[in-house]
């Protein structure tokens, strides 16, 4: 198999002198193979995301990007290849800035210049009208704001999108549209997603590989199909059993 885009190798992390938030976590994301990181509050999902984003350094173990350990001087190139989308589209967009400026932020940060053509292309790619760039975040609904956040993440054509619960704050019908958007971006832009989610339906829809995190440890990982069909760990079973589903459809009339 080719070199993973990003890889956590036996990573451990503790906040200050506190107990370990992550223990011996090994996870690799290969191009074209979306990975889901599943777990509940306090499992360490967001801590792992911070390490993968290079915002914090692991206490033990190593994070690798394209085979090389992630070090400070490699961060700029890394930022271009890896971008993030967060859960709450109401807090992740600066309310005082126009959409065009918000979406251009990674371009400015990477010294690529706030190219309006690239911004317009990103806005079109996420299905927003071209005039969206002149407007402000409060003029958009939750689903549209999440599209804006996604446009910002893909404007520099990253290879990997770290998506932290990108649809859990959205209504069900909006969720379907954003999941469709993410799937089409993967297909059209050679993009791979590391999805953090507790929604197994979304995971089943988007990701080929699933890792289950509980109390800072990966308790189970493998092909999503295998993990969900025959969960080995009791925690995975509990997650699967907890998913609210509609009652079976009656006979069609």
């Amino acid at each position: 198999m080719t070199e993973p885009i990003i890889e956590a190798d036996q990573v451990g992390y503790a906040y200050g002198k506190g107990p370990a938030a992550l223990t011996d976590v090994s996870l690799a994301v290969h191009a074209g193979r979306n990975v889901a990181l599943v777990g509940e509050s306090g499992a360490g999902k967001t801590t792992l995301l911070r390490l993968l984003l290079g915002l914090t350094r692991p206490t033990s173990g190593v994070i690798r990007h394209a085979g090389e350990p992630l070090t400070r001087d490699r961060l700029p190139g890394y930022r271009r290849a890896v971008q993030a989308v967060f859960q709450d589209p109401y807090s992740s967009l600066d309310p005082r800035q126009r959409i065009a400026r918000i979406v251009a932020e990674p371009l400015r940060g990477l010294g690529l210049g706030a190219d309006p053509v690239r911004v317009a292309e990103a806005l079109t790619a996420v299905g927003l009208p071209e005039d969206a760039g002149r407007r402000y975040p409060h003029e958009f609904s939750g689903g549209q704001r999440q599209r804006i956040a996604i446009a910002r993440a893909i404007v520099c054509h990253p290879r990997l999108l770290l998506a932290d619960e990108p649809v859990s704050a959205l209504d069900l019908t909006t969720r379907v549209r954003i999941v469709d958007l993410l799937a089409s971006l993967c297909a059209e832009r050679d993009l791979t997603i590391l999805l953090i989610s507790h929604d197994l339906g979304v995971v089943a829809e988007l990701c080929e590989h699933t890792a289950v995190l509980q109390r800072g440890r990966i308790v189970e990982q493998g092909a999503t199909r295998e993990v969900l069909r025959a969960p080995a760990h009791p925690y995975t079973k509990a997650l699967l059993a907890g998913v609210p589903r509609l009652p079976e459809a009656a006979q069609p009339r």
Partner: protein
Amino acid sequence: MTLLVVSGLTVRDQAGTVLVEDVSFTVEAGERIGLIGESGSGKSLTALAVAGLLPPGITATGTALIDGVDIIAAPVDMISASEKARTGVRGKIVSTVFQEPLTALDPLMTAGRQIAVPLRRFRGLRGSALRAAVGAALDEVRLTDTDRIAGSYPHQLSGGQRQRVAIAMALACRPRLLIADEPTTALDVTVQAEILDLLDSLVAAHGSALLFITHDLPVAARVARHTHVLRSGRIVESGPIAELITAPVHEYTRTLVAAARRFDAALEGLTRD
């Protein structure tokens, strides 16, 4: 007598924009009614209007009779309705559980003291009887180690524990109607399943009626029976939830069902051969 009669409920904001329009429904004693709608559908405003808890500036017209008391007494302005009459209804006859227990609970009060407030006020309990009732209320929501929980502040509790405390508080005075507004949306999947089971069994045990509000059709299907689908402030379809799911008539209900089915199917497709 019908426990709750809402008729012609219309809610407007300060600018006069109609947020909820001509909503009517009833809740019989012991019945479980679902209100389903997405962001901006007016489902929470409907719940707040019924509980007499609309924020300042938001006005309601129409009637909402709880046990014969009109919560929207003055026809034009909610605020001029007699607060006293409404206070007599809240807690005793109707109580509410909201989405975010961290904001619903007072951060400066221990869980035990918060649960004691309605018990003291409405059931007149004092001293050891009050302490025993607080312990019983925590027991009932299946919290173990009740002494420690009673002495804890909200920030010392997990999300699931907080929501259990909020439910204990809401049910402490045996209300005849419990309004639950997205009570599990902020919770993890496994905790959500536990809280839904808990609500289900407590409402059944007490014979309380339930007005269950959510955007999540599969969640509603677990606890609600007769259900109204709200969109842009209006009820677009009503019926037993099983029928809404299997044979939705309105276009919007169909979209909701299709969205829920989509993720169910993805999961089914993987977990079955």
